[in-house]
């Protein structure tokens, strides 16, 4: 389940790897020695510092999909200039572009699909108009155009008149805007400004998330709402659960607006019933 906040996104993932009614594993070996989570058997991809990619479905196909995604992402990053050690910031890939890549990969296997339904969450850097601070030069331009028009003959077509173009200037700023996207196994995307979900308990998740989400959630409050909707829905489903983890991707507030380097990802482990 992924939810969007004001300048942050949260994604909640459970920890069950099963085969129908049988649970195969709820933990996985983790490279960190002091990881209390004991690793999550679910694979979560981190293509960027501001994007997370997770999925539900067949585990084996998920592994194949993860490998193909990683290879393609790595080659794109390398082509875009790759790792730079000279201190200059590398241009990060937009989560929208990563979603397009994911759709392409899935549709490539149209006849024998990857049996996975992925969810992509991220923050994209966009340039927006700042409200209320707008300088317009249109009135001057329109007045100038009016005077030149009356001097010309009436029969001349309007496209040939050389009126000066109206120039409008706005103040702009960059912000980190949340991006949520889920896809079916053939790559058909579905985006939302509030939440997206995927998995066996998706009907229950739609119900709880629809009722509990509200706009302009931030930080820990977003994690609380996302975790609450997630755990409540999962308790009514026997194929999901055994723990939940919520990742919060948050853009720090800076005076000059957003910048890719001001994004951080925090992991929250949610306590839930172990069944």
């Amino acid at each position: 389940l992924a939810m969007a906040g004001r300048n942050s996104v949260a994604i909640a993932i459970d920890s069950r790897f099963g085969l129908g009614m049988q649970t195969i594993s709820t933990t996985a070996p983790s490279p960190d020695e002091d990881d209390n989570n004991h690793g999550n058997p679910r694979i979560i991809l981190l293509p960027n510092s501001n994007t997370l990619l997770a999925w539900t479905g067949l585990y084996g196909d998920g592994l194949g999909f993860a490998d193909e995604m990683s290879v393609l992402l790595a080659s794109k990053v390398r082509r875009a200039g790759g790792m730079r050690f000279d201190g200059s910031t590398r241009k990060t890939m937009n989560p929208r572009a990563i979603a397009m890549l994911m759709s392409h990969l899935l549709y490539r296997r149209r006849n024998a699909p990857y049996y996975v339904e992925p969810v992509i969450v991220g923050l994209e850097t966009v340039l927006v108009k700042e409200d209320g601070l707008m300088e317009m030069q249109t009135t001057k331009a329109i007045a100038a155009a009016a005077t030149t028009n009356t001097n010309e003959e009436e029969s001349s077509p309007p496209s040939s008149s050389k009126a000066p173009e109206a120039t409008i200037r706005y103040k702009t700023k960059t912000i980190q805007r949340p991006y949520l996207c889920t896809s079916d196994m053939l790559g058909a995307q579905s985006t939302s400004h509030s939440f997206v979900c995927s998995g066996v308990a998706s009907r229950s998740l739609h119900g709880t998330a629809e009722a509990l989400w509200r706009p302009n959630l931030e930080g820990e409050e977003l994690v609380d709402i996302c975790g609450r909707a997630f755990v409540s829905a999962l308790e009514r489903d026997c194929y999901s659960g055994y723990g939940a983890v919520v990742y919060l991707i948050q853009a720090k507030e800076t005076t000059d607006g957003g910048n890719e380097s001001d994004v951080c990802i925090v992991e929250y482990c949610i306590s839930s019933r172990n069944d």
Partner: protein
Amino acid sequence: MASLLSATSAVHSRNGQSCLPIHSSEGQATIPVRFDGTNLSIGFSTDPTANIIDGSSIDHGITKAPYERSFSPYEFNGGTTLAISGPDYAVVAADTRLSSGYEILSRNVSKLHPLTDRCVLGSAGCKTDVDQLRSVLDIKMKVYQHNHRKPMATPSVAQMLGNTLYMKRFFPYYSFNVLAGIDSEGKGAVYSYDAIGSFERTPFSASGSGQSFLIPLMDNVISHKNRCDERRDLPVEEVVEIVKDAFLTAGERDIYTGDAVEIKIITSEGIRTEMFNLKAD
């Protein structure tokens, strides 16, 4: 079908063969399907030498496959019901839409039926079975009134409904019921049922097409599960607001729920009715 993944879960078995249902205005029809590893194709699984229709075309051969028609005595008319009990009240609500397949038959049909003035039955499912069940229950209530010279108490109504449903164990009433009322001690009582009469007294109950959207939400808000803040008793006005929010949620995500919600609040004084409009899409 939202996706191929959900289509595979819509496959059901008819006479031992997997098939996909088709929504047809002329009634139930199915296409026999077979999913093999390399090619999702349509074919007859019982005869491996028959021509397998090529699954690589965009519609998986659906337009070429023959389909079978069979008569099904049941039809799903949609709808959602929700009931919540409190210390001295019970609230029961149901939407007012009647559908068949992808069509809306009526926007103004009630799914709630008061059995006594302390007890209301809400049912979703197949409307004809629901109507017949109500007639049978009404008759039994009248007989009880004549024999015992008093109206039936809610726990007795609950047991009677369970027995009535089980009497049709081998050709069930396609009716998903919730029963809400005030018991003989004055406390709110809600009972949940399945189609063949298994029942239990519960703090809340939801049934119908929107039940999976509402039940986890009620777990969190009414039963106060998975919450760190302190639990408090909810007054009846707040519960009615929660019910309205819940139906807004179900109306958003379920195609069979919408138009309006009829809410009945049952207290020891009697039954009060409220209507609340939902989206008509």
